[in-house]
Protein backbone atom coordinates (compact mmCIF):
# COMPACT_ATOMS: atom_id res chain seq x y z
CA UNK A 1 0.00 0.00 0.00
CA UNK A 2 1.15 3.48 -0.79
CA UNK A 3 2.35 5.62 2.09
CA UNK A 4 -0.73 7.82 2.68
CA UNK A 5 1.52 10.84 3.24
CA UNK A 6 2.98 10.71 -0.28
CA UNK A 7 1.31 11.31 -3.64
CA UNK A 8 1.82 9.05 -6.66
CA UNK A 9 5.00 10.93 -7.58
CA UNK A 10 6.47 10.22 -4.14
CA UNK A 11 6.09 13.84 -3.04
CA UNK A 12 4.80 14.90 0.36
CA UNK A 13 1.01 15.20 0.19
CA UNK A 14 0.24 15.32 3.92
CA UNK A 15 2.47 15.37 6.99
CA UNK A 16 0.87 13.00 9.48
CA UNK A 17 3.70 11.11 11.18
CA UNK A 18 7.46 10.66 10.94
CA UNK A 19 7.05 6.93 11.40
CA UNK A 20 7.69 5.43 7.97
CA UNK A 21 8.53 8.72 6.31
CA UNK A 22 11.52 8.07 4.02
CA UNK A 23 14.87 9.44 5.07
CA UNK A 24 15.31 11.48 1.88
CA UNK A 25 12.04 13.32 2.57
CA UNK A 26 13.02 14.10 6.16
CA UNK A 27 16.40 15.33 4.96
CA UNK A 28 14.76 17.40 2.20
CA UNK A 29 12.54 19.12 4.78
CA UNK A 30 15.55 19.95 6.97
CA UNK A 31 17.52 21.20 3.94
CA UNK A 32 14.61 23.33 2.80
CA UNK A 33 14.14 24.80 6.28
CA UNK A 34 17.70 26.18 6.40
CA UNK A 35 17.22 29.09 3.97
CA UNK A 36 13.90 29.98 5.62
CA UNK A 37 15.71 30.84 8.86
CA UNK A 38 17.20 33.86 7.10
CA UNK A 39 13.78 35.41 6.42
CA UNK A 40 13.39 36.29 10.11
CA UNK A 41 16.33 38.70 9.83
CA UNK A 42 14.87 40.72 6.98
CA UNK A 43 13.09 44.02 7.00
CA UNK A 44 10.09 42.38 5.27
CA UNK A 45 9.64 38.94 6.84
CA UNK A 46 7.44 37.61 4.08
CA UNK A 47 7.74 35.34 1.06
CA UNK A 48 5.07 35.02 -1.64
CA UNK A 49 4.92 31.20 -1.88
CA UNK A 50 1.45 30.66 -0.40
CA UNK A 51 -0.05 33.93 -1.60
CA UNK A 52 -3.79 33.47 -2.13
CA UNK A 53 -3.89 30.16 -0.20
CA UNK A 54 -6.05 29.65 2.87
CA UNK A 55 -4.63 27.76 5.82
CA UNK A 56 -7.04 26.66 8.54
CA UNK A 57 -5.62 26.00 11.99
CA UNK A 58 -8.01 23.42 13.44
CA UNK A 59 -7.18 23.14 17.12
CA UNK A 60 -9.43 20.75 18.99
CA UNK A 61 -7.00 20.88 21.89
CA UNK A 62 -5.29 23.82 23.52
CA UNK A 63 -1.90 24.95 22.35
CA UNK A 64 -0.12 28.26 22.37
CA UNK A 65 3.35 27.71 20.97
CA UNK A 66 2.47 25.24 18.23
CA UNK A 67 -0.55 27.18 17.00
CA UNK A 68 1.35 30.48 17.10
CA UNK A 69 4.39 29.18 15.26
CA UNK A 70 2.20 27.54 12.60
CA UNK A 71 0.35 30.82 12.23
CA UNK A 72 3.55 32.85 11.92
CA UNK A 73 4.98 30.34 9.44
CA UNK A 74 1.87 30.47 7.24
CA UNK A 75 1.74 34.27 7.41
CA UNK A 76 5.42 34.59 6.50
CA UNK A 77 4.55 32.53 3.42
CA UNK A 78 1.77 35.07 2.67
CA UNK A 79 -1.09 32.63 3.27
CA UNK A 80 -4.38 33.74 4.75
CA UNK A 81 -4.68 32.08 8.13
CA UNK A 82 -7.91 31.26 9.91
CA UNK A 83 -7.70 30.03 13.49
CA UNK A 84 -10.51 27.82 14.70
CA UNK A 85 -10.66 27.06 18.35
CA UNK A 86 -13.07 24.17 18.16
CA UNK A 87 -13.68 23.90 21.89
CA UNK A 88 -15.83 26.98 21.56
CA UNK A 89 -17.41 26.31 18.18
CA UNK A 90 -19.37 23.75 16.18
CA UNK A 91 -17.95 20.61 17.77
CA UNK A 92 -19.44 21.71 21.05
CA UNK A 93 -22.75 21.96 19.21
CA UNK A 94 -22.36 18.37 18.06
CA UNK A 95 -20.98 18.72 14.52
CA UNK A 96 -18.81 15.78 13.47
CA UNK A 97 -15.14 16.22 12.58
CA UNK A 98 -15.66 15.42 8.90
CA UNK A 99 -18.69 17.70 8.63
CA UNK A 100 -16.53 20.52 9.99
CA UNK A 101 -13.87 19.67 7.39
CA UNK A 102 -16.40 19.56 4.54
CA UNK A 103 -17.72 22.96 5.52
CA UNK A 104 -14.26 24.45 5.56
CA UNK A 105 -13.52 22.85 2.18
CA UNK A 106 -16.61 24.64 0.89
CA UNK A 107 -14.85 27.84 2.02
CA UNK A 108 -11.94 26.95 -0.32
CA UNK A 109 -9.48 25.72 2.29
CA UNK A 110 -6.07 24.75 0.87
CA UNK A 111 -4.48 23.35 4.00
CA UNK A 112 -5.53 22.10 7.41
CA UNK A 113 -3.24 22.21 10.41
CA UNK A 114 -4.86 19.83 12.87
CA UNK A 115 -4.40 19.26 16.57
CA UNK A 116 -6.69 16.72 18.17
CA UNK A 117 -6.83 14.76 21.41
CA UNK A 118 -7.70 11.60 19.47
CA UNK A 119 -4.82 9.71 17.86
CA UNK A 120 -5.46 9.37 14.12
CA UNK A 121 -7.77 12.36 13.65
CA UNK A 122 -5.46 14.05 11.05
CA UNK A 123 -5.17 10.72 9.21
CA UNK A 124 -8.96 10.41 9.16
CA UNK A 125 -9.22 13.85 7.57
CA UNK A 126 -6.54 13.02 5.00
CA UNK A 127 -8.27 9.78 4.05
CA UNK A 128 -11.59 11.58 3.78
CA UNK A 129 -10.08 14.19 1.44
CA UNK A 130 -8.52 11.47 -0.68
CA UNK A 131 -11.72 9.41 -0.82
CA UNK A 132 -13.63 12.46 -2.02
CA UNK A 133 -11.06 13.40 -4.67
CA UNK A 134 -9.78 16.56 -3.01
CA UNK A 135 -6.08 15.91 -3.53
CA UNK A 136 -5.23 19.60 -3.70
CA UNK A 137 -5.98 20.02 0.01
CA UNK A 138 -3.20 19.18 2.45
CA UNK A 139 -3.20 18.12 6.09
CA UNK A 140 -0.48 18.79 8.63
CA UNK A 141 -0.64 16.98 11.94
CA UNK A 142 0.05 19.46 14.74
CA UNK A 143 -0.19 16.75 17.40
CA UNK A 144 -2.73 13.94 17.75
CA UNK A 145 -3.34 12.16 21.04
CA UNK A 146 -0.38 10.02 22.04
CA UNK A 147 0.40 9.25 18.41
CA UNK A 148 2.60 11.84 16.71
CA UNK A 149 3.76 15.44 16.58
CA UNK A 150 5.80 15.39 13.38
CA UNK A 151 6.74 19.06 13.08
CA UNK A 152 8.04 19.01 16.66
CA UNK A 153 10.13 15.96 15.80
CA UNK A 154 11.43 17.71 12.68
CA UNK A 155 12.35 20.92 14.47
CA UNK A 156 14.17 18.86 17.09
CA UNK A 157 16.13 17.16 14.28
CA UNK A 158 16.86 20.54 12.74
CA UNK A 159 18.12 21.81 16.10
CA UNK A 160 20.33 18.76 16.63
CA UNK A 161 21.76 19.04 13.12
CA UNK A 162 22.38 22.76 13.61
CA UNK A 163 24.48 22.18 16.74
CA UNK A 164 25.95 18.72 16.03
CA UNK A 165 26.08 18.67 12.19
CA UNK A 166 26.12 14.89 11.79
CA UNK A 167 23.67 12.31 13.14
CA UNK A 168 25.84 9.25 12.52
CA UNK A 169 28.03 9.51 15.64
CA UNK A 170 25.49 10.64 18.21
CA UNK A 171 24.11 9.20 21.40
CA UNK A 172 20.75 10.78 22.18
CA UNK A 173 18.72 10.41 25.38
CA UNK A 174 14.98 11.04 25.63
CA UNK A 175 14.02 11.57 29.24
CA UNK A 176 10.73 11.47 31.13
CA UNK A 177 7.12 10.72 30.38
CA UNK A 178 7.49 8.72 27.16
CA UNK A 179 4.21 6.89 27.75
CA UNK A 180 1.98 9.91 27.18
CA UNK A 181 4.26 11.66 24.72
CA UNK A 182 3.51 11.99 21.01
CA UNK A 183 6.66 14.10 20.83
CA UNK A 184 8.79 11.15 21.97
CA UNK A 185 7.30 8.87 19.32
CA UNK A 186 8.08 11.35 16.57
CA UNK A 187 11.58 11.92 17.94
CA UNK A 188 12.36 8.20 18.09
CA UNK A 189 11.08 7.66 14.54
CA UNK A 190 13.14 10.55 13.16
CA UNK A 191 16.33 9.74 15.08
CA UNK A 192 16.32 6.11 13.96
CA UNK A 193 15.46 7.02 10.35
CA UNK A 194 18.30 9.56 10.27
CA UNK A 195 20.76 6.91 11.44
CA UNK A 196 21.50 7.91 15.04
CA UNK A 197 23.38 4.84 16.31
CA UNK A 198 22.18 4.99 19.91
CA UNK A 199 18.82 6.33 21.09
CA UNK A 200 18.13 5.94 24.82
CA UNK A 201 14.89 6.40 26.67
CA UNK A 202 15.14 7.18 30.33
CA UNK A 203 12.21 7.16 32.73
CA UNK A 204 10.32 5.37 35.48
CA UNK A 205 8.69 2.07 34.51
CA UNK A 206 5.24 3.60 34.98
CA UNK A 207 5.95 6.27 32.33
CA UNK A 208 7.53 4.10 29.64
CA UNK A 209 5.34 2.16 27.20
CA UNK A 210 5.56 -1.62 27.47
CA UNK A 211 7.94 -3.09 24.91
CA UNK A 212 9.38 0.33 24.10
CA UNK A 213 12.63 -1.52 23.19
CA UNK A 214 10.91 -2.67 20.02
CA UNK A 215 11.22 0.88 18.70
CA UNK A 216 14.98 0.34 18.57
CA UNK A 217 15.95 2.19 21.74
CA UNK A 218 17.97 1.33 24.86
CA UNK A 219 15.95 1.61 28.03
CA UNK A 220 17.30 3.04 31.31
CA UNK A 221 15.47 3.25 34.59
CA UNK A 222 18.38 5.08 36.24
CA UNK A 223 18.77 8.64 35.01
CA UNK A 224 22.43 8.99 36.00
CA UNK A 225 23.30 5.76 34.23
CA UNK A 226 21.36 6.74 31.13
CA UNK A 227 22.87 10.23 30.77
CA UNK A 228 26.48 9.01 30.80
CA UNK A 229 28.33 10.17 27.70
CA UNK A 230 25.32 11.39 25.71
CA UNK A 231 25.57 14.18 23.11
CA UNK A 232 21.95 15.28 23.22
CA UNK A 233 19.43 15.31 26.08
CA UNK A 234 15.81 15.62 24.98
CA UNK A 235 13.60 16.36 27.94
CA UNK A 236 9.89 15.67 27.83
CA UNK A 237 7.20 17.60 29.62
CA UNK A 238 5.51 15.81 32.47
CA UNK A 239 1.99 15.55 31.11
CA UNK A 240 0.02 16.43 34.21
CA UNK A 241 -3.21 16.80 32.28
CA UNK A 242 -2.85 13.32 30.80
CA UNK A 243 -2.29 11.54 34.06
CA UNK A 244 -4.88 8.96 34.96
CA UNK A 245 -4.59 7.59 38.43
CA UNK A 246 -1.55 7.64 40.62
CA UNK A 247 1.29 6.87 38.22
CA UNK A 248 3.54 9.22 40.10
CA UNK A 249 4.55 10.46 43.50
CA UNK A 250 4.47 14.21 44.07
CA UNK A 251 6.13 16.62 41.57
CA UNK A 252 8.82 17.31 44.19
CA UNK A 253 9.71 13.64 44.44
CA UNK A 254 9.65 13.31 40.66
CA UNK A 255 12.08 16.20 40.38
CA UNK A 256 14.44 14.61 42.89
CA UNK A 257 14.76 11.44 40.81
CA UNK A 258 13.94 12.45 37.21
CA UNK A 259 14.48 16.22 37.07
CA UNK A 260 17.40 17.39 34.95
CA UNK A 261 19.78 19.24 37.25
CA UNK A 262 23.29 20.55 36.60
CA UNK A 263 24.90 17.68 38.48
CA UNK A 264 23.02 15.06 36.44
CA UNK A 265 23.77 16.91 33.19
CA UNK A 266 27.46 16.86 34.12
CA UNK A 267 27.41 13.11 33.40
CA UNK A 268 26.67 13.80 29.71
CA UNK A 269 29.41 14.95 27.35
CA UNK A 270 30.72 18.44 28.25
CA UNK A 271 29.31 19.84 24.98
CA UNK A 272 25.96 18.07 25.25
CA UNK A 273 22.90 20.12 24.33
CA UNK A 274 19.55 20.12 26.13
CA UNK A 275 16.23 20.28 24.27
CA UNK A 276 12.71 20.66 25.62
CA UNK A 277 9.54 20.89 23.49
CA UNK A 278 7.85 23.28 25.93
CA UNK A 279 5.99 24.33 27.87
CA UNK A 280 8.48 23.59 30.64
CA UNK A 281 7.55 22.65 34.17
CA UNK A 282 10.47 24.23 35.99
CA UNK A 283 11.32 22.36 39.14
CA UNK A 284 9.48 19.25 37.92
CA UNK A 285 11.28 17.78 34.90
CA UNK A 286 13.96 20.46 34.54
CA UNK A 287 15.82 22.76 36.90
CA UNK A 288 15.88 26.47 36.08
CA UNK A 289 19.67 26.48 36.21
CA UNK A 290 19.71 23.99 33.31
CA UNK A 291 16.78 25.51 31.41
CA UNK A 292 18.49 28.91 31.41
CA UNK A 293 22.03 27.51 31.19
CA UNK A 294 24.59 27.55 28.40
CA UNK A 295 23.79 24.02 27.19
CA UNK A 296 20.06 24.64 26.72
CA UNK A 297 18.93 25.20 23.12
CA UNK A 298 15.26 25.50 24.00
CA UNK A 299 14.67 28.97 22.56
CA UNK A 300 16.53 28.22 19.30
CA UNK A 301 14.14 25.25 18.98
CA UNK A 302 11.22 27.68 18.90
CA UNK A 303 12.85 29.88 16.26
CA UNK A 304 13.85 26.92 14.11
CA UNK A 305 10.30 25.60 14.49
CA UNK A 306 8.99 28.48 12.38
CA UNK A 307 11.46 27.75 9.55
CA UNK A 308 10.71 24.01 9.67
CA UNK A 309 6.96 24.67 9.49
CA UNK A 310 7.52 27.09 6.59
CA UNK A 311 9.46 24.36 4.81
CA UNK A 312 6.74 21.76 5.36
CA UNK A 313 3.94 24.06 4.24
CA UNK A 314 5.80 25.29 1.17
CA UNK A 315 6.64 21.73 0.13
CA UNK A 316 3.00 20.64 0.58
CA UNK A 317 1.59 23.72 -1.11
CA UNK A 318 3.69 23.27 -4.21
CA UNK A 319 1.53 20.52 -5.73
Amino acid at each position, binding site marked *: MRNPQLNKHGELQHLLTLDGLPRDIITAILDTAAPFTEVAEREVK*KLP*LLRGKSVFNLFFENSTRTRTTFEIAAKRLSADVVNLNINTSSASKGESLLDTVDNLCAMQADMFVVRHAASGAPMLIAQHLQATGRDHIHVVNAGDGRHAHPTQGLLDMYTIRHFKQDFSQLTVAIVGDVLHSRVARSQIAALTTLGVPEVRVIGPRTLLPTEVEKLGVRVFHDMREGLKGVDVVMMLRLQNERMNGALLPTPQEYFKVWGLTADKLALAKPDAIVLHPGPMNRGVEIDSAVADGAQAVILPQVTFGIAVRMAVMSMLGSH
Partner: protein
Amino acid sequence: MNILDAEALCRQLAEQIRPHVTPATALVGIYTGGLWLAERLHKELGISQPLGAIDVSFYRDDYGSKGLHAKPQRTGIPFSVESAHIILVDDVLYTGRTTRAALNGLFDFGRPARIELAVLVDRGSRELPIAARYCAHTLPEALPRDQNLELQRDEAGRLTLELTQLG
Protein backbone atom coordinates in the same frame (compact mmCIF):
# COMPACT_ATOMS: atom_id res chain seq x y z
CA MET B 1 29.01 25.48 -26.94
CA ASN B 2 32.65 25.92 -27.76
CA ILE B 3 32.40 29.26 -29.52
CA LEU B 4 31.68 31.05 -26.24
CA ASP B 5 34.73 31.44 -24.01
CA ALA B 6 33.28 32.11 -20.56
CA GLU B 7 36.62 33.26 -19.14
CA ALA B 8 37.10 35.84 -21.92
CA LEU B 9 33.48 37.00 -21.60
CA CYS B 10 33.96 37.38 -17.87
CA ARG B 11 36.93 39.71 -18.43
CA GLN B 12 34.93 41.71 -21.00
CA LEU B 13 32.05 42.09 -18.60
CA ALA B 14 34.39 43.35 -15.87
CA GLU B 15 35.77 45.98 -18.27
CA GLN B 16 32.25 47.13 -19.15
CA ILE B 17 31.36 47.61 -15.51
CA ARG B 18 34.69 49.06 -14.31
CA PRO B 19 34.17 52.72 -15.37
CA HIS B 20 30.89 52.81 -13.44
CA VAL B 21 32.10 51.38 -10.14
CA THR B 22 31.94 53.74 -7.16
CA PRO B 23 32.59 53.09 -3.47
CA ALA B 24 28.80 52.66 -3.11
CA THR B 25 28.58 49.87 -5.71
CA ALA B 26 27.48 46.49 -4.34
CA LEU B 27 27.17 43.18 -6.21
CA VAL B 28 24.51 40.53 -5.70
CA GLY B 29 24.90 37.18 -7.49
CA ILE B 30 21.96 34.91 -8.29
CA TYR B 31 22.54 31.24 -7.33
CA THR B 32 24.33 29.32 -8.75
CA GLY B 33 26.02 30.52 -11.93
CA GLY B 34 25.38 34.19 -11.26
CA LEU B 35 27.04 33.90 -7.87
CA TRP B 36 30.20 32.33 -9.35
CA LEU B 37 30.33 35.17 -11.83
CA ALA B 38 29.69 37.76 -9.12
CA GLU B 39 32.53 36.31 -7.00
CA ARG B 40 34.87 36.83 -9.97
CA LEU B 41 33.68 40.35 -10.68
CA HIS B 42 33.84 41.29 -7.01
CA LYS B 43 37.53 40.37 -6.89
CA GLU B 44 38.40 41.66 -10.35
CA LEU B 45 36.78 45.05 -9.77
CA GLY B 46 38.00 45.44 -6.18
CA ILE B 47 34.49 46.10 -4.88
CA SER B 48 34.62 47.23 -1.26
CA GLN B 49 31.02 46.40 -0.29
CA PRO B 50 30.66 42.74 0.76
CA LEU B 51 29.23 40.37 -1.86
CA GLY B 52 25.54 39.45 -1.69
CA ALA B 53 23.94 36.17 -2.78
CA ILE B 54 20.31 35.58 -3.58
CA ASP B 55 18.32 32.41 -4.18
CA VAL B 56 15.14 33.15 -6.13
CA SER B 57 13.36 29.84 -5.35
CA PHE B 58 11.03 31.54 -2.89
CA TYR B 59 10.03 34.19 -5.44
CA ARG B 60 9.63 32.17 -8.61
CA ASP B 61 6.38 32.61 -10.51
CA ASP B 62 6.24 28.93 -11.49
CA TYR B 63 6.02 27.68 -7.86
CA GLY B 64 2.32 26.94 -8.40
CA SER B 65 3.02 24.68 -11.37
CA LYS B 66 6.53 23.37 -10.78
CA GLY B 67 6.74 23.44 -7.00
CA LEU B 68 9.58 24.46 -4.80
CA HIS B 69 13.10 24.16 -6.15
CA ALA B 70 14.67 21.04 -4.68
CA LYS B 71 17.54 22.64 -2.79
CA PRO B 72 17.03 26.30 -2.06
CA GLN B 73 20.12 28.10 -0.81
CA ARG B 74 20.50 30.68 1.89
CA THR B 75 20.07 34.24 0.69
CA GLY B 76 22.60 36.59 2.26
CA ILE B 77 22.68 40.34 1.73
CA PRO B 78 25.53 41.52 4.00
CA PHE B 79 25.13 45.24 3.29
CA SER B 80 22.26 47.66 3.81
CA VAL B 81 19.99 47.57 0.77
CA GLU B 82 18.41 50.88 1.75
CA SER B 83 19.68 53.50 -0.78
CA ALA B 84 22.31 51.07 -2.13
CA HIS B 85 23.66 51.00 -5.70
CA ILE B 86 23.29 47.34 -6.63
CA ILE B 87 24.48 45.43 -9.65
CA LEU B 88 22.53 42.18 -9.92
CA VAL B 89 24.64 39.48 -11.59
CA ASP B 90 23.41 36.41 -13.49
CA ASP B 91 25.08 34.08 -15.94
CA VAL B 92 22.42 33.90 -18.67
CA LEU B 93 19.54 36.29 -19.36
CA TYR B 94 16.58 34.44 -20.88
CA THR B 95 12.86 35.10 -20.18
CA GLY B 96 13.61 37.69 -17.50
CA ARG B 97 11.57 35.82 -14.90
CA THR B 98 14.57 35.00 -12.73
CA THR B 99 15.55 38.68 -12.74
CA ARG B 100 12.00 39.65 -11.78
CA ALA B 101 12.07 37.17 -8.88
CA ALA B 102 15.44 38.51 -7.70
CA LEU B 103 14.18 42.10 -7.81
CA ASN B 104 11.19 41.17 -5.66
CA GLY B 105 13.50 39.44 -3.22
CA LEU B 106 15.87 42.42 -2.97
CA PHE B 107 13.04 44.82 -2.20
CA ASP B 108 12.16 42.77 0.88
CA PHE B 109 15.50 43.92 2.31
CA GLY B 110 14.87 47.64 1.76
CA ARG B 111 14.57 50.28 -0.95
CA PRO B 112 17.69 50.43 -3.08
CA ALA B 113 18.63 53.66 -4.87
CA ARG B 114 19.36 51.78 -8.10
CA ILE B 115 19.59 48.23 -9.41
CA GLU B 116 21.38 47.39 -12.64
CA LEU B 117 21.68 44.01 -14.32
CA ALA B 118 24.92 42.41 -15.51
CA VAL B 119 24.93 39.12 -17.44
CA LEU B 120 27.47 37.06 -19.32
CA VAL B 121 25.16 36.02 -22.15
CA ASP B 122 21.77 37.21 -23.40
CA ARG B 123 20.11 34.22 -25.09
CA GLY B 124 16.95 36.11 -26.18
CA SER B 125 13.27 35.09 -25.77
CA ARG B 126 12.39 37.73 -23.17
CA GLU B 127 8.92 37.47 -21.67
CA LEU B 128 9.16 40.53 -19.42
CA PRO B 129 10.32 44.13 -19.98
CA ILE B 130 13.81 43.51 -18.59
CA ALA B 131 17.17 44.43 -20.13
CA ALA B 132 20.78 44.11 -18.98
CA ARG B 133 22.83 47.28 -18.54
CA TYR B 134 26.01 45.19 -18.86
CA CYS B 135 26.15 42.19 -21.17
CA ALA B 136 29.29 40.50 -22.51
CA HIS B 137 27.64 38.67 -25.37
CA THR B 138 24.25 38.67 -27.08
CA LEU B 139 23.44 35.62 -29.17
CA PRO B 140 22.58 36.68 -32.73
CA GLU B 141 19.56 34.38 -32.69
CA ALA B 142 17.48 33.28 -29.73
CA LEU B 143 18.27 29.74 -28.56
CA PRO B 144 15.51 27.15 -29.03
CA ARG B 145 13.46 26.46 -25.89
CA ASP B 146 14.61 22.87 -25.60
CA GLN B 147 18.19 23.96 -25.08
CA ASN B 148 19.67 24.98 -21.77
CA LEU B 149 22.64 27.32 -21.50
CA GLU B 150 24.30 27.73 -18.13
CA LEU B 151 27.59 28.48 -16.50
CA GLN B 152 29.65 25.66 -15.00
CA ARG B 153 32.66 25.82 -12.72
CA ASP B 154 35.26 23.06 -12.49
CA GLU B 155 37.33 22.15 -9.46
CA ALA B 156 40.08 24.57 -10.44
CA GLY B 157 37.50 27.37 -10.48
CA ARG B 158 37.54 27.71 -14.29
CA LEU B 159 34.26 28.93 -15.79
CA THR B 160 32.71 27.41 -18.91
CA LEU B 161 29.38 27.84 -20.67
CA GLU B 162 27.57 24.55 -21.22
CA LEU B 163 24.82 24.03 -23.77
CA THR B 164 22.63 20.99 -23.09
CA GLN B 165 19.56 19.49 -24.69
CA LEU B 166 16.59 19.30 -22.35
CA GLY B 167 14.83 15.92 -22.19
